[in-house]
Every structure is written in structure tokens, then in C-alpha cells.
């Protein structure tokens, strides 16, 4: 035990970098397995883009759990709602979407995404007040309530938009790929990567550089203590919940553009993916969620290329492997 003088800065906690190295190592191991470097680059870019989108959708869920011990099984509904709301804006402006100018395209896409975020955020407010507040602190009822919410939300979407698949074509300027030599990277994936990275950096900055972030991190670690210090953690939680819902809406728009279609069942399909990511990352950890999302996307892309049949269960295998290594996910931030 070394002596620490009063003037010395506090000893820095040791950085745990093993999880960060994991996706990098995975990507490097894949180079010889895939063989062609250009294919490898394309696949890696695809996994990064897909991972960023999954991260955007999952980040809210993990924070909400970390902060308030609330697991929202209806989180997927926000994703689908976001995608549907975007179609409301994009359909009337289809002509601008077809225009061959990046700025005109973005001028339509940006308001659509913002409106989606606003609507799913507002829906988050309603869900928190109506479904989660009454059963706060009771896991079993939370799961049941939010699952009920998912059923109702999905059915309402069917009632409003019909059961058919709504096409959501990419704007003209985002079609096609950037070609470097014999490496092709789809333009939209680059945009998705940029947005995802932007969201990740923004969340990290808010969490690590602001007082609000300090309170959220403190709340994740010890809720009672933050309350005892006189902060209204319930209001903080509501804010986080709404932000998480809004981000899920944004992720929904991006995912719908990626798949170029919208359907209410996308919420079911993505809920599973998001849960796997959140479990892998460690409940409540944003960094873990980010790495988990990229890992899941990498396994899906590399796995789909190398052994297509394996891709069906690759998520589960990845989850089992990670949990064998670290039973509480990559970063265990909560004491629960």
C-alpha cells in the first residue's frame, strides 16, 4: 500500500481495455480467414455501420436499466414508431428524395429524423408515466406491463398504417458506393457510421463532462445516495427515458432506410438483437453497449460471409461466449 499525500491527485482507476481490443482482434483474425483484403474492408465497414445503428437503438435501453433498474421490453416499439413517422414526412417529399443533390436530400431527411425523434420521445414520456411509474420497482410487473405496451403499440401501428410493408427508398445521392481501388463502401453506410459515432461521442461528452452526466453516472452506481443528496432522480430518469426513446426512434429511421422498408414487425426482430447487445455490453454501460453492438454486427457480417448457416445462431453463440468470459457482460457497472 503506497502512501498518498493530500496534495496528490486521486489515483486513476485502472482502465479496462480488454473489451476494447476484442472487436479489433476479431477484425484482424478475420483477414486471413476471409482472404481477399477488399472483401474484408467492405465487410468491416458494413459491420461498423450496422453496429452504429444498433448502438443508437440500444443505448437508451441500457441507460434506463442502469439508472432505474427498469427494463423496457417495449423498447422495440419506439424503433418502429420512429420509422413510421419518418414515412409521413418522406412520402409527400418523394420528389425531393429523388433529386440528385445531397443537400436537398438531407434537407428532407433531417426534419424527418427530427420529427421521428420528437414523436418517439413524446411517446416515451407517455409510456413512462402510464406503464412504468405505477409498477416502479417490481421487475415482474415491469416486464408484463411493457410487453403489454409492445402489443398495444404494434397493433395500433397495424391499425394506423395497415399490415403491408411500406417501402422507404434511399435518397438518390445516398445510393451507390464510394469506390477506392477494388473496395466498395456503400455511401449510406458511411453516413450511418458518422451519425452513430456522433451520437456515441455526444453521449460520452454529456456523461463525462457535464453535471447532468455526473448525476446520471452517480445514479447508475448508487441511486439512493444521489437521492439523499437532494437530487430528484425520478425527473432525471424521465429525461433519460425520453432521450433513450428518441434515440430508438432515430435508430428506427436509419434502420428502415438501411433495409429500405418499414414494417411493424421490425420491432420484434430488433428487440432481440438489442437485448443481446445490452447483455453482452453489461447492463447500464454505454461503452459496453457500443462494443457489444459492433461485435454483434461483426459476427453477423463475417459469419454471414464465411458460414451463412451459422449466422442464424451466431448472436446466441457470441452471447454465450462473452458471458462465459465475463458473466455480467463486458463492463459490469451496476452492483445489481
Amino acid at each position, binding site marked *: 500500500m503506497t502512501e498518498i499525500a493530500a496534495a496528490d491527485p486521486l489515483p486513476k482507476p485502472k482502465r479496462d481495455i480488454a473489451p476494447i481490443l476484442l472487436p479489433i482482434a476479431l477484425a484482424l483474425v478475420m483477414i486471413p480467414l476471409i482472404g481477399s483484403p477488399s472483401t474484408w474492408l467492405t465487410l468491416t465497414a458494413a459491420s461498423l455501420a450496422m453496429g452504429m445503428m444498433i448502438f443508437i437503438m440500444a443505448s437508451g435501453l441500457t441507460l434506463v436499466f442502469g439508472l432505474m433498474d427498469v*427494463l423496457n421490453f417495449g423498447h422495440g416499439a419506439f424503433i418502429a414508431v420512429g420509422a413510421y413517422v419518418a414515412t409521413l414526412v418522406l412520402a409527400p417529399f418523394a420528389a425531393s428524395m429523388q433529386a440528385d443533390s445531397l443537400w436537398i436530400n438531407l434537407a428532407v431527411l433531417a426534419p424527418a429524423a427530427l420529427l421521428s425523434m420528437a414523436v418517439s420521445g413524446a411517446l416515451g414520456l407517455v409510456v413512462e408515466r402510464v406503464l412504468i411509474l405505477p409498477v416502479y420497482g417490481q*421487475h415482474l410487473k415491469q416486464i408484463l406491463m411493457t410487453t403489454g405496451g409492445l402489443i398495444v403499440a404494434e397493433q395500433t401501428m397495424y391499425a*394506423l398504417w395497415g399490415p403491408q410493408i411500406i417501402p422507404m427508398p434511399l435518397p438518390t445521392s445516398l445510393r451507390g458506393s464510394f469506390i477506392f481501388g477494388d473496395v466498395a463502401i456503400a455511401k449510406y453506410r458511411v453516413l450511418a457510421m458518422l451519425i452513430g459515432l456522433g451520437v456515441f461521442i455526444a453521449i460520452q461528452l454529456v456523461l463525462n463532462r457535464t453535471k447532468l452526466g455526473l448525476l446520471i453516472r452517480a445514479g447508475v452506481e448508487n441511486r439512493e445516495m444521489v437521492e439523499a443528496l437532494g437530487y430528484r432522480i425520478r425527473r432525471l430518469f424521465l429525461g433519460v427515458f425520453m432521450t433513450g426513446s428518441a434515440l430508438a426512434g432515430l435508430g428506427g429511421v436509419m434502420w428502415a432506410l438501411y433495409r429500405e422498408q418499414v414494417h411493424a414487425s421490425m420491432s420484434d426482430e430488433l428487440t432481440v438483437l438489442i437485448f443481446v447487445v445490452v447483455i453482452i455490453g453489461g447492463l447500464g454501460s454505454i461503452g459496453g453497449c457500443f462494443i457489444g453492438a459492433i461485435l454483434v454486427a461483426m459476427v453477423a457480417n463475417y459469419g454471414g460471409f464465411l458460414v451463412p*448457416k451459422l449466422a442464424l445462431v451466431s448472436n446466441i453463440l457470441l452471447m*454465450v461466449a462473452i458471458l462465459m468470459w465475463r458473466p455480467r457482460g463486458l463492463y459490469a457497472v451496476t452492483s445489481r
Partner: protein
Amino acid sequence: MMLLSGDPPRSRVLTLLLVVIILALAATPFLFPGAKALNVAAKICVFAALVASYDLLLGYTGSVSFAHTMFYGIGSYAIAIALYGMGPNWAAVATGIVVGLPLAALLALAIGLFSLRVAAIFFAMITLAVASAFQVLASQLSWLTGGEDGRSFQLPELLRPGTVLISKSLFGFEINGRILTFYLVFAVSALMILALLRVVNSPFGRVLQAIRENRFRAEALGFRTVFHLSYANCLAALVAAGAGILNALWLRYAGPDTSLSFSIMLDILLMVVIGGMGTIYGAIIGATIFILAQNYLQSLMGVASKAASEAGLPLLPGLLHPDRWLLWLGLLFIASVYFFPTGVVGRLRNGGGDKSTGASH
């Protein structure tokens, strides 16, 4: 009393309801003519057993599993694949049972050991992920499972509709293989429900309830909670697979939509909560309400939807469309979790009093 393992319905209205339901089910082939009524009755039997087995998990141990349809599907597919591959004989039925049940139990054990050590919430997420992977697997391995089309098969001679056991001239009713199959479904479902009632009222069942109420305390009393939870998980999986076998035998078909889809999982959840968690009897009530609603409410909604669209109301025709019946049941589900968490059975037993079951934390 022996039959009910000393756990009677404990409410006059409930007893009456149960007696009416069971008598009506038993007499369906004679009371309600037509294939639809018989189908509905068989479905109620199968789902009552399936939901009761889910109640063992949800109501008695407090762990939410989303993988229950997986076990149901394993049972269905085991019998379907066996009868499809080996032809319509009793050896194939036996093979299906001998392969399907242990497979379900083993898988339940694996999932249980892997995820029951941690909190209920982890278990719910992991089962959801595993079940969805299984569903994809079943629809992709088409050489075995028939993919999205599923597997249709023929039943052994004795159970076919064409087999007349007692001709019409004797009692005025024709007893054929179809009716025999119905009674097979009815009897096996009833047996499984009674067995579950026995399990939950045994010392083992009491330990499960102790774990539900306070896992830490149960552990402190010296119970190996992981063992008990895994055991309950396996038992529930066995009964679910049994229900799956019955379902496949009745439908003469097993496919992703009838035995594996996530919507069946949600149906089970709705039935157990509306009927009453932690009561076993709730499963019978819940399954009856739900399946009657599924089959008869829809036509009612169709009429209402038409009336609304003729009156020129906005939105309402869409909301009342027969395909949207689940919307209303979803609302009922939320309301019942919120207002009467003990479901119909709990409500009847307490005479309207509000005594909520403790949720695990």
C-alpha cells in the same frame, strides 16, 4: 380432494365456472355440432395445459420466460417429424414422444443452468434471444422441419376421422377417430393440469413460492435455489412439450405459425395474466376466455367495424377491424396487470379484495 391435491378452487363462483367449462369441453362433440366448435374445444384443452405449465414458472417461481413456445414447438415438431418420416403408426408416435420430451427437458436444463443464476430480468432477456434463434433455426432447416410450410402428416389408423368406432345407429351419435383424438387431447391435458396442481402443492412447490417471494431468504434457509428453479423449468418444459404433442396430433400438422411464433408466446402471457398467476386454475379460465374471444369476438368486431365505417367515423373502423382484436386484449392485459394482478381467479377468491402477489425484486 385427493385429485385436486388439497387445493380446491376456494370460491363458489370459480368452482361453478370451472365445472361449467370442463363439462362443456367434455360434452362438446355431442352438444355443439360442427368442426369449428370441436377445434375450439381442443385448442382450449391444449392451451389450458400449456398455460398451466407456464404458470408454474411465472406464477410460482416469478421468472419470466419467453422460451416457452420453444418447448411447445419441440413437442409439436418431434411428433410431426416422426410421423412424417416413419409413416402413420404407433411406433412413430412413441418415437416422437421419446425424443421430444427429453430434448425439451435437456434444453430447459441448459438454459436454466446458464441463466437462472442471475436476476429474473436476465433470464427473460436470454430466453427471448434463445427462442428467437430457435425459431429461425426451425424455419431454415427445411430438410428436417419443412421450413415455413411446416410438416403435415397422417395419424395412425385408429385416430383418423374415417374410422368409425361406434356407428350412429347405436346411440344416435357417431363416435369416430376424430372424436377419440379429441378425448385423448382432453384426457391428457386434464392429467397434466392435475399433475401440475400436485407439483405446486408439494413441498417442492412451497419452496418455489418461497423463492418467488424472497430468493435471498430462501437461499439462507438452505434451499439450493438454482436446483429448484432448474427443476421447475424442466417440469414446465416437459408439460409444454406434451401440450405441443397434443396440438400437433390434433392439427395433424406442425409449423412455425402454429407452434413456434412469438405471437403464441404473447398469447400465453395474456392468458396466464388474465386468468390469474400462481393459481393453475387461472390457466383454464384464461385459456377459455382468450380462445373464445379469439374465435368469436373477431366476428363481433367485424360487425362493429362495418357499422363504424358505414357511419363514416374516422379511425374507428381500423381500430375495430377483426384483425385488431389483439389490441383490445393487450389493453385488457395492461389493465389487469395494473388493477387486478391476481387475475380472474384471484379476484374471485378474494371476493374483490385487492391482495397483490409479491413481485420479485
